[in-house]
């Protein structure tokens, strides 16, 4: 690097290479793929949340003209179950159905209408069983086991400091978070083709090609090298494509029929087909000194994992290790369980367990400020963690993590003008259809601060491989070809990869090979990890190519052997050239490539972390990113309607590789947090999702999301390529609690449940016949499931108090 910079390198707002095709409608998403002679597949799902599964009679379905195959659990040749962490989920239900929507059979037919008729013709004997849908009851001694592996996915108990040490000021409460869905816009789809070698080829929208391959091969009972996946166009993911959904079903049908199979979900099936964000029930107890220093934090978190494990064990680790938030706390006891119920499975969604606990710990910080008579911003500043502090796991916080600066920065942003009596339309809560009465609007301001771990944790070596080739095009122009299995789901890795290649190799023309399993795994597009991990892999491969290019030039120029050995001491790459100032050398990259292309592979690893020990101690997280939001809301106190007036965000971003992409990530993350605060909830009644459509599951629109006032803190992360940090998740964690805090400030209610609904803000006449989603349980104050933290010397029956 150095000298004349190539255009389109890192640090620039380079445009997406796939943008023109996406904007003109030419870009092919997985659901757009068609091949001649393909069959159409549809999935039969259980209407019951729990049932004994008797005979499945598909004879009538198979006899229908146009039906090519019907597959059930009996047709799975390999391992009958799959899963991201533990393989506890049947490919098709066998013997017992554990959630409403669980796949029971799949059909391939000449067209969709025939496939649907075939589904209706399959006779399934269900013997409904009473579902277990209360996550706080399934671990009771007399609770029925819902699966041979039991009802506990994982329990974590973090003890740090001295048990029983309290400050004089105590706040304690419990909080509930509903089930959010990723609601990516393009429903699941794949095109699956049988291959002559006995293998299978998939074009699929996924977040993690190699994990899909591993699970497919096991269930199909064939070697992994016979399962080949190529990423098809992905219309959003947000965690919802990390689990296998239709991949194995499609492959079974393609192998059964010998024909290519298009398998796809509609919106209803998408809602039923992938895991959601875990609903949470949480208890917190914070104590502080009279002048506002945190003394102890206790938390007890129950995550409802639904019927199968998915990524529940890892989500729980995130939730519990982050439960005290980015604050210095001498004494902590942080506990949690992820449990099995007959609710829909839950797994990865942007934030991965951290948004839930942030809602809890930030509500507690506001309550503590209230109990202390202190400004909530001041309380956060006073207690914010600093690099070098010891976290509840015993991990020493690395730099940078500018928590204090973030909350100071966001608090210093200008506030919007106060509401006036003559505003109309969108400026009022309720917006276009139901404008409120201007005089009945109350304003509130709220803050939230959080940190979120980056990359995989607890000793995982989630490496990423890349292959880079530098060659000449037919017209003699140098070109870089980057091959990575990183799933581009919208986040912009394709842009970043090009920027890195241009920067390292001084060549403007970069092409990305299709992401597929012909190259090594890039790991998952999740955990804020791909810019760091696959960016690191692309950079490493580019550096290896550059080293060979420079050595080649040094040899050709008859430079001394020590220069050939370490050419970067003398030579460097500038835009389109290799330059050696001392040697008086300047050679075009195209000329240096005349003797042949150069190719290199590189695998990037992050620093090693460790698992948690029995006391919940270790060094579990690679690094963190911090964020602070300030929300300003107006609330109609008659109708319980909320308008988010403004959002400000200060975020710890590391080095910024593409300012435009960064802005898109933080604005999108903020909007998803806004959705969780105000409207997004999959509602279940006795385990059955009652709102699996965009008509009933509400998503923020452009009328709901205000402009974001964004400040980036760009201190480099020392062990990451170029000093980057992942940026997509942190703002999702803070947007929700900031908005809820602002609503609390506006209306003076506790609001212990998220999303906040109109009936939480005003006393509306109730309709007991209507489903309301998970409410605050009326039972004990402390979540059951794990025994309450009396061992830490706390009386669980004691309410919030100020001693």
């Amino acid at each position, binding site marked *: 690097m150095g000298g004349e910079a190539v255009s389109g390198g890192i640090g620039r*707002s380079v445009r*997406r290479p*796939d*943008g023109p095709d*996406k*904007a*003109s*409608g*030419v*870009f092919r*998403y997985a659901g757009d793929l*068609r091949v001649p002679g393909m069959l*159409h597949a*549809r*999935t039969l*799902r*259980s*209407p019951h949340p729990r049932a004994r599964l008797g005979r499945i009679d598909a004879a009538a379905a198979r006899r229908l003209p*146009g039906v090519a195959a019907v597959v059930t659990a009996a047709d799975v040749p390999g391992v009958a179950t799959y899963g991201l962490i533990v393989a506890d989920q049947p490919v098709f239900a066998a013997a017992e159905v554990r959630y409403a929507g669980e796949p029971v059979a799949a059909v391939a037919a000449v*067209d*969709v*209408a025939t496939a649907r008729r075939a*589904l*209706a013709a399959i*006779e*399934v*004997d269900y013997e409904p069983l009473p579902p277990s849908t209360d996550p706080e009851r399934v671990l009771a001694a007399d609770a029925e086991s819902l699966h041979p592996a039991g009802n506990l996915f994982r329990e974590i108990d973090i003890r740090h400091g001295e048990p029983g040490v309290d400050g004089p000021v105590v706040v304690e409460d419990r909080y509930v978070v509903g089930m959010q869905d990723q609601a990516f*816009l*393009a*429903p699941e789809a794949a095109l699956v083709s049988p291959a002559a070698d006995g293998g299978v080829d998939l074009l699929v929208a996924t977040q993690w090609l190699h994990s899909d391959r591993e699970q497919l091969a096991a269930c199909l009972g064939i070697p992994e090298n016979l399962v080949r996946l190529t990423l098809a166009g992905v*219309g*959003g993911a*947000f965690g919802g494509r990390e689990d296998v959904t239709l991949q194995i079903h499609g492959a079974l049908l393609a192998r059964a029929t010998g024909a290519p199979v*298009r398998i796809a979900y*509609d*919106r*209803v*099936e998408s809602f*039923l087909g992938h895991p959601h964000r875990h609903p949470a029930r949480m208890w917190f107890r914070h104590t502080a000194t009279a002048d506002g220093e945190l003394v102890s934090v206790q938390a007890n978190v129950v995550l409802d994992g639904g019927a199968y494990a998915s990524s529940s064990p890892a989500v729980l680790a995130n939730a519990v290790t982050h439960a005290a938030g980015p604050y210095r706390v001498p004494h902590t006891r942080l506990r949690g369980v992820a449990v099995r119920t007959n609710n829909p499975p839950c797994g990865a969604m942007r934030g991965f367990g951290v948004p839930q606990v942030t809602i809890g710990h930030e509500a507690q910080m506001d309550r503590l400020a209230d109990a202390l008579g202190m400004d909530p911003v001041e309380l956060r500043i006073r207690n914010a963690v600093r690099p070098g502090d010891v976290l509840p796991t015993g991990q020493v916080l690395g730099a940078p993590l500018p928590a204090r600066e973030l909350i100071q920065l966001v608090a210093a942003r200008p506030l919007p003008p106060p509401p006036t009596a003559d505003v109309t*339309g*969108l400026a009022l809560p309720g917006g*276009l259809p139901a404008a409120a009465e201007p005089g009945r609007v109350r304003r509130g301001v709220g803050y939230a601060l959080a940190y979120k771990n980056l990359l995989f944790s607890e000793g995982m070596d989630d490496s990423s491989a890349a292959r880079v080739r530098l060659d000449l095009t037919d017209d003699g122009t140098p070109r870089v070809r980057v091959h990575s299995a990183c799933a581009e789901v*919208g986040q*912009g890795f394709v842009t970043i990869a090009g920027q890195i290649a241009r920067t390292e190799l001084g060549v403007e023309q970069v092409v990305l090979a299709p992401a597929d399993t012909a190259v090594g795994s890039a790991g998952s597009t999740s955990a804020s990890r791909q810019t760091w991990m696959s960016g690191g892999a692309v950079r490493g491969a580019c550096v290896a190519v550059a080293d060979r290019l420079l050595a080649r030039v040094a040899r050709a120029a008859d430079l001394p052997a020590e220069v050939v050995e370490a050419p970067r001491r003398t030579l460097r790459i500038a835009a389109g050239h290799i330059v050696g100032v001392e040697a008086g050398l300047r050679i075009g990259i195209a000329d240096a490539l005349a003797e042949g292309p150069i190719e290199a592979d590189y695998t990037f690893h992050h620093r090693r972390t460790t698992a948690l020990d029995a006391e919940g101690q270790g060094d579990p997280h690679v690094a963190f990113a911090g964020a602070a939001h300030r929300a300003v809301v107006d609330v109609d106190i008659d109708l319980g309607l909320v308008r988010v007036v403004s959002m400000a965000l200060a975020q710890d971003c590391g080095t910024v590789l593409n300012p435009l992409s960064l*802005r*898109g990530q933080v*604005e*999108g993350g903020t*909007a*998803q947090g806004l959705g969780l605060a105000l409207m997004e909830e999959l509602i279940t009644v006795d385990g059955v999702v009652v709102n699996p*459509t*965009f*008509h009933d599951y509400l*998503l*923020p*629109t*452009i*009328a709901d*999301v205000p*402009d974001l006032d964004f400040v980036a803190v760009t201190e480099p992360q020392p062990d990451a390529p170029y000093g980057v940090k992942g940026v997509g998740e942190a703002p999702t964690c803070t947007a929700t609690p900031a908005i809820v805090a602002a609503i609390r400030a506006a209306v003076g209610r506790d609001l212990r449940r998220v999303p906040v609904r109109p009936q939480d803000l005003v006393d509306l006449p109730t309709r007991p016949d209507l489903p309301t989603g998970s409410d605050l349980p009326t039972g004990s104050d402390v979540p059951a499931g794990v025994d309450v933290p009396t061992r830490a010397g706390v009386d669980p029956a004691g309410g919030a108090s100020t001693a």
Partner: protein
Amino acid sequence: MTAVPADGLDAGAEGADRAGGAAGADGGESYRLNVDGFLRTVNGASIGDSLLTVLRDTLGVTAVKDACEQGRCGACSVLLDGRLAASCTVLAADADGTRVVTVAGLGGAGLARAVRAMFLAEGAVQCGFCTPGFVVAVTDLLTRHPDADEEEIREALAGNICRCTGYGRILAAVRAVQAERGALRSGDAHSSGETQRHGETQRHSDGGPDGW
């Protein structure tokens, strides 16, 4: 007991993906649709098929995206005789005799070109699945209201869901199109050099689908 398919709610899409050509087993209809300026014959579609289903699955026009089939997300936005519509809420057979314009038919010049260019320049495209619908909706808005204020923009685009961007860059793109075209208009008054460009722009934006 007979199981109910999870997608059984979706009666409107019955007959989707039917192989084109001959009439379907349950008696398909035959009619013609004017899609992006081309007359296309539809054979074998069910009478209940939505315009979205026929466009995507019978005619192969996959530039129109299918995300909710309820008219709630705008991913399938098209213009019918110049009026914005969610193609999933229109019966295909009812579109016989109207001019259907998708994002692919908006053309490579004029306002639609400017909208697409600003979506890219301002970072309004991430996964891109909502983008074709947004480009249609924004082009429609700025054709009718070139100087729409922020509230009018937000109101007009509230039927299009984007899950990636949080809308900030989309709003920026709309404003950038307005600024660019506003500059073109003011340039017309002060600079003869801009007049020719202005004239072309006006001609394109007045000409219906071909003009966009």
